[in-house]
């Protein structure tokens, strides 16, 4: 009887901690995301496969990835929702964070190269499982198009040297 009580108390404490810290972390993260999105708005990210032909560009693959874990409360709530079905909102917000963060990281990389566009963006999402751990990895990648300065061949651009794998 005592054992069960201790277990219940443990779960409740974890739920409260998960709820508190998880919410706080998520709120802060969303604030940061919104700020950075505003700062990187000048760089368009396009899902089109065909690059523009208005001027010569050099192309560099840019990527951004992030692994985000759910918290104890989210996991518990998702379990409850699972019984009745419907939108699993705690995980929706987690994945939204991960996606927006990965795009921002990709854009950061592109901005360092002075890119004009990021073309053909693709996403890759995977569940990373370690025992009881539930985390998602989101990778965003695309091709950064960097305008080539007149008279310089793109192979001579310093930018390409850094980005060559």
């Amino acid at each position, binding site marked *: 009887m005592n054992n069960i009580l201790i277990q219940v108390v443990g779960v409740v404490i*974890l739920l409260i*901690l*998960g709820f508190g*810290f*998880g919410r706080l*972390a*998520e709120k802060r*993260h969303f604030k940061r995301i919104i700020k950075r999105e505003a700062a990187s708005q000048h760089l368009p990210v396009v899902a089109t*496969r*065909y*690059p*523009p*032909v208005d001027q*010569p*560009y050099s*192309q*560099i*693959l840019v*990527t951004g*990835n*992030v*692994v*985000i*874990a*759910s*918290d*104890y409360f*989210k996991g518990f709530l998702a379990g409850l929702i699972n019984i009745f079905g419907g939108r699993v909102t705690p995980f929706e917000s*987690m994945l939204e964070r991960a996606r927006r*963060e990965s795009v921002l990281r990709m854009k950061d990389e592109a901005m360092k190269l002075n890119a004009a566009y990021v*073309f*053909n963006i*693709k996403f*890759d999402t*995977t*569940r*990373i*499982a*370690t*025992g*009881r*751990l*539930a*985390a998602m*990895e989101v*990778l965003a*990648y*695309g*091709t950064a*198009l960097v305008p080539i300065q007149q008279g310089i061949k793109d192979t001579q651009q310093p930018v*390409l040297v850094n980005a*060559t*794998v």
Partner: protein
Amino acid sequence: MLVSNLELLPDRRVEKHLGLVQGSSVRSKHVGRDIAASFKNFFGGELKGYTELLSDSRDEATERMVEQAKALGADAVLNIRYSTSSIAAGAAEIFVYGTAVVLTDE
């Protein structure tokens, strides 16, 4: 080596297709990292250790693909795709593939 996930290049033409090239990498983190990550899992948030791990792993896979392309005499790999799958607890496979090509200036 030019690596891109576009199929066409604005100012260059594909002279020759050399076929599919690929690279893969399976990595896992040591137990200490896993334990740290499982603590983090109670409170949510980013697992930086795993972000780095997967990023390194992806670089390695890409490098392997590029080596294959070099061996074929290619000067670019076009239309690449990444694919990730978690195959066991704490281990993920990163797979990258694309088309090796020879380019000419237009």
